[in-house]
Each structure stands twice: as C-alpha cells, then as structure tokens.
C-alpha cells in the first residue's frame, strides 16, 4: 500500500503563491509570502494568533484580495478573475470555517443540500439524497440528519461543516483552526477525520492551526508564519529543531508542559 507521502505529486502544484502582501490600514499582515501546495499534500500553516494565517486562506478562496503578489489556484490566477469564474473555482475549493458557519435556520440535511442543489442543478432527488448520506457517513454523523445546528456539540458542528464542504467533492480543502475550542479527544477525532478525508477524497489540504498536536497528526509538510513571512518549513521535527525564540516557546508550551 502506498504511503501518504508517495501519493503527493511534487510536479503538480494546485496552489501557487508568490510574494503576497496584505495590509489592513497601517498594519502589515503578510509581507511577501510564497508557497506551493502540491497535489495530494496536507500542508499545515502554523503561527501565533493574529499573524495572518486566516487572512492567507481567505485570499486563496477569494474572500479577501491581496495587495500585491501572485495567487494561482488550480492554475487560475485570482487577479482579474471574473465573478463567474470565481464561483466555479470555489466549487473545487472547500473551506471549513473556524466556527463551522452552519446556516442556523436550516437543518443538517438542508445545510448539506443547499450548496449541492445550487451548484449541481442536474442532480436528481435520489442523487442528492445519496450524496448527503455519503458525506454524513464519512463524518460519522448519519443520525444527525434532521437536527438543527443549535442541537449539535462543537465537535459535531465541525464535522457537519466539513461534510458541507465535502459534498461538492472539492479538489482542495482549506481548514481554518479545525480543532480550536475542542477538547483533546474530539480534537484527535477531527485530526483523524482530516486524514481520512484526504485519503478518501484524494484532496489536497491547507490546515491553519496553532495546535501542534493537530499539526503533527495531519501535516505532510509544515510552514511557520512568522512576522508576515514563511520563515521555516519542513517536517514537524525539522521545524522545531531550533533555538529561535519565536519558535521554541511554541513547542515547549504544547509538549513540555
């Protein structure tokens, strides 16, 4: 059986970013970020709160615009992209929000059905139902199909949020703090789910987190966002093999306390 590393196609970047700058007013957030996400890869972006990790993935999905620099997603340059092209590109990029962002006036079924029937109008009622059952099974929450989001726990909401992005069968998954606010056991389950999704749906992922257990568990490669730039990248052990005072306390806090 091929290992996960062997499934990564290093000749085929699905996201390419070069010299990306972004500021809000006088506050410079990203100061020349460059990176590639390869097909089949799970890339973890680590960094302290407020360093621009979420800003980065919001730029990738077109919710924010960079001030300058190149952002290419699935070969498409986001600069000058039309609204129609962006909408069609977004169907191939799943985005799992930090707080799940479930539509609270809809049941779980409606939450899953909503993006599907709007983006794939040719599907029959039966096919829609089948897709809903399939993704609910993937996140192991088939029994919650008729529940309202307010009736779900934090972990369940995260799972449904992930299921809602999976239903469009995206080529790229973007996870914004997938384990934030969850207890350690639920975090382990979510990490496991991210790995399973990557293997089952053959997607490439960017996981934004400051949870090192999550980074270690899901990351094929880790990049660390420091002072608006990717200063360190590599495997988990390589990242923390340093005395850099900006990096070391991160590891110490998570693993030696």
């Amino acid at each position: 059986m091929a290992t996960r590393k062997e499934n990564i196609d290093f000749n085929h970047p699905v996201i390419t970013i070069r010299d990306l700058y972004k500021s809000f007013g006088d506050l410079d957030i990203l100061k020349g970020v460059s990176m590639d996400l390869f097909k089949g890869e799970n890339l973890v972006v680590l960094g302290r709160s407020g360093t621009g990790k979420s800003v980065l993935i919001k730029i990738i999905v077109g919710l924010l615009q960079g001030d300058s620099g190149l952002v290419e997603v699935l070969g498409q340059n986001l600069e000058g992209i039309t609204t129609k092209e962006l909408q069609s590109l977004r169907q191939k990029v799943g985005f799992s929000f930090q707080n799940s962002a479930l539509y609270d006036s809809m049941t779980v079924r409606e939450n899953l059905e909503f993006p599907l029937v709007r983006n794939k109008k040719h599907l029959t009622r039966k096919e829609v139902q089948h897709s809903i059952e399939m993704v609910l099974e993937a996140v192991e929450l088939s029994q919650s199909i008729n529940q309202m989001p307010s009736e779900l726990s934090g972990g369940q909401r995260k799972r449904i949020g992930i299921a809602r992005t999976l239903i469009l069968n995206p080529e790229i998954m973007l996870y914004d703090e997938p384990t934030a606010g969850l207890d350690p056991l639920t975090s382990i389950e979510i990490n496991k789910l991210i790995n399973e999704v990557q293997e089952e749906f053959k997607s490439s992922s960017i996981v934004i987190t400051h949870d090192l257990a999550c980074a270690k568990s899901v990351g094929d490669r880790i990049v660390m966002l420091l002072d608006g730039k990717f200063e360190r990248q590599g495997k988990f052990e390589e990242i923390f093999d340093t005395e850099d005072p900006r990096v070391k306390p991160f590891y110490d806090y998570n693993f030696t306390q």
Partner: protein
Amino acid sequence: MYFKNSKRYLIDLANIHRFVIRFFKEVFVGPYEFKEVVKQCYEIGYKSLPLMSVTGFIIGFVFTNQSRPSLQDFGAQAMLPSVIGIAVIRALAPLVTALISSGKVGSQIGAELGSMKVTEQIDAMEVSGINPFKFLVVSRVVATSIMIPILTCYVACVALLGGFLSVHQHEATSFNIFVAEVFNSLSYLDIFSSLIKSVVFGYTIGIVGCYQGYNSNKGTEGVGRAANWAVVMSMFLIFIEELLIAQIIQAIR
C-alpha cells in the same frame, strides 16, 4: 477629527451607492430565487397581519372619533366618510404601514443578516459558490417591495372598517353608503400615488435593513447596531420620501 468623520461619511455614502447599484444589477439577471422570495413574502406579509390588523383598526376608529367633534361644530359630520377616506388612503395607511414595518421587518432583516455576517454564514455561502447577495438581499428587498403595498391595502381596508364602526356608533349608516362616500371623494391618482409610495417605502425598508445587516461587524454589538440603524435610518428616509412624493403628487394634481 472633523475631517476623519467627513471621510467616513463619504465612504459610507459610496458604499450605500454601490450596494443599491448592485441590487439593480442583480435583480434583473437570473437565476431567480423565487422560492426564497415566496418564503420572505410569507415572513414579512403573513406574519405581520395580526399587528397590522390591530393598528389599522385602531387608527381608523380613533381618527374618526377625534375628527367628529370638529366637523360637528360646522354641522358637517356627513363629511366624515370622505375625510376618513382621504386621510386613510392618501397618508395614514401607507405611512403607518411603513413605519410599523420598518420597526418589525427592518429590524428583523438587519439582525438576521447581521448575525449571519458575524458568524461567517454569508462568507460560507460565498465560498460554496452561492451568490449570497442574490439569495439574501435581492429576495428580501423584492419581498418587502411586494408585501408593503399589499399590507398597505389591507391596513387601509381595516382602518376604513374601524372608521365605519365609529360612524355607525352615532348614526345608522349602511356600509354600502359609507364605502360609496369614501370612494366618491377619492381619485385614481390618490390610490395610485399611495401604491407607488408604499412600493418606495417597502424598497427602502428592505434595502436599508439588508445594507445594515450585510455590512455589520464588531460581533454581537454590531448585530444590535445593525438592527437599530435599520429602523432609525429607514424611518428617517420614509418621512423624507413621504414629503417629497406628497409634493410631487400635489404638483401633478
């Protein structure tokens, strides 16, 4: 400080202008959200009926009661149906319906979209390839533009019924004669101008509520502010519009 406030005010104006232009661009281009428009019509129209019924009836009844002594002084109480008809159709029904709706519907829209915005539900729609502006804003503004005129007609009917009951308390007037008197004093221009006015009011309530909600920020505080401003701003605009449309109709008349 003064410069900073002026700058923010101008930026706000530009954003509102862009929001309104976007609405007109999107409202005429498919795909249309018929199902959502119908759902919003139900929320805005049907669910407002009890409040509108009570308000309309009280306005008609009280207005007639209050007008009677003045007309009686001149021995002109026979003019009551005409006075009620003109007052209700020309001014009271559209204005009262709009003001109540801006409180009930405007704040609801502002708070709903505001909370969707701060919990990233609007962003979630956008990244799923759904146009949230069309789904949330266009459908609500279309629904208010349709339902406020219908509610205005309903409030006018209920207010006239209230007026009739007040008249009937003192004189044995038949309902048919009362209605005939009311409509004899009205022209098509009165009815038409009221309808146009209520469409404008409905549009204002919808677009202001949506703008405030769609652009809210700063967490829960922002949601409260969006709901509050949706009411304050739409009421203010409704009074300005009432003044302008009344002048235009007067000039046409």
